[in-house]
């Protein structure tokens, strides 16, 4: 695959799809929600626990889906841990912008804030796959009760 696959399926994505670090379920969760795409049958179950400061202390996902979907769930769990609701919302909007417009559409600050999530920078060229990456987010936003998400 090398050169051509590089762009979309970066090593980090393939790695996390194969061996997710945040798979599973939070015990005694403060929030939980499902996301599903009836067109391909993909499903994500997200559970989360909040700290005393109400920030997201732990996020786990149980995902049946494609590599993009699993890796997105996993990198989402990693990136969103430690955020408060405003921070989660801001990160989601940056991620959405990345999927819509690619890196070109983002300021330097956004790029820095996205961190690991920049692994999906090339997904904007594959419009029909965007939903694979946003599915875990809609579950997380529902589990966090922010009233956002697609």
């Amino acid at each position, binding site marked *: *695959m090398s050169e*051509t*696959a590089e762009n*979309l*399926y970066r090593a980090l994505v*393939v790695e996390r*799809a194969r061996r997710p670090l945040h798979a599973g379920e939070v015990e005694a969760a403060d929030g939980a929600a499902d996301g599903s795409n009836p*067109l*391909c*049958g*993909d499903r994500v179950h997200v559970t989360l626990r909040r700290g005393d400061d109400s920030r997201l202390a732990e996020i786990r996902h149980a995902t049946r*889906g*494609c*590599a*993009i*979907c699993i890796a997105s769930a996993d990198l989402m769990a990693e990136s969103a841990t430690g955020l408060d609701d405003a921070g989660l919302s801001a990160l989601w909007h940056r991620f959405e912008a990345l999927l819509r417009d690619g890196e070109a559409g983002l300021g330097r600050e956004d790029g820095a804030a996205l961190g690991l999530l920049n692994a999906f920078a090339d997904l904007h060229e*594959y419009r029909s*796959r965007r939903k*694979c990456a946003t599915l875990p987010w809609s579950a997380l936003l529902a589990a966090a009760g922010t009233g956002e998400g697609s």
Partner: protein
Amino acid sequence: MNALTMPVPDLSAYRADFPILSETVRGKALVFLDSAASAQKPNQVIDAMTHAMRHQYANVHRGLHWMSERTSDAYEGVRDKVAALLNASSRDEIVFTGSSTNAINLVAHSYGSLLRPGQAVLVSEMEHHANIVPWQMLRDRSGIALRVAKVTDAGEIDLDSLRAELADGKVGLVSVTHMSNVLGTITPAAEIAAIAHAAGAKVMFDGSQAAVHQPVDVQALDADFYVFTGHKLYGPTGIGVLWARRAILEAMPPFLGGGDMIGSVSFERSLWAEVPHKFEAGTPAIIETIGLGAAIDYVSAIGLDAIRAHESDLTGYALERLQAIEGLTVMGHARARGGVISFSIAGAHAHDIATLLDQNGIAVRAGAHCAEPLMKRFGLTSTARASFALYTTRTEIDVLAETLDRVRSFLV
């Protein structure tokens, strides 16, 4: 594979008729293996449509002037071509619709309104949504039952199940595919027609896939209804065909109302036109019908027998090459099959396979292929599907197999 008496014909020269096949995609030569979703168009079809729009066009049927008469001739001439393609006993049995989907909905509304509560429509587990949802809607509207014949593990319609569902004589219509768009299975249509008729049911075949890959003779099949769609037969979108026996069409009420389908109109009462016009309301898809005519001329000149032999050879070769790939499973193994292969690779999701193939210029479909109940029957949520056309080559299958092998080792 069926033993075919015909030697494998060389159709490679026809590739040049399809301009899109010279395109590159993401920097690679396009390998188009999604023809079961919609086929590409030869110059002959493009030129026929362009010619009409440039040189000979007006609305049909009602015009007394030269352009209208000539356009009507061209439009009505396609009815003869379709009748010949299907070996219909009369051109008046050919109804133009917008697509297979529209044709099946026409039958579900019009013929469906003649079925009585207590009667049933019987489909199979391997139907495309287009041959499921209209019957569900009829069921919910009018109280007829919807029954389902089972599919075997091999991916064939279970004829025992079919007979069992017909046994009480309540089935008014059997509506099944003539070729599965997922499994490639070619169903034993003549046998199914005989079974249906013996139980007092009429029979309709969804020929959306079958009519593209083999000769169809509605009289030899002893069918009552047959539908197909232009865009899969190398023709334009927006045009489909319903064939039905004249006596049945005459007994059916019209479906859509408007111009061209009436004899006379007053606010109290309108009189319908004769068949087939009774079913063609409004300005028809004139340019698209002319395009379909060119497509029929095109495949007829090559010969649907030759197309079948070519695709049969390709399918055998592809099955061999794909099944040699580690972890790859082909869905279904019917004895009679056309050029459609659905497959999974252990540990790789169909969407990832499709995207990685696409990055290499190879177009395949991934998903449930508008046949969710069939996927469920096989315990799957999605597969990748490669489908072949008269322009597909062994080289393209080699590219597919080699790339799939790399995709597998990349993902798994």
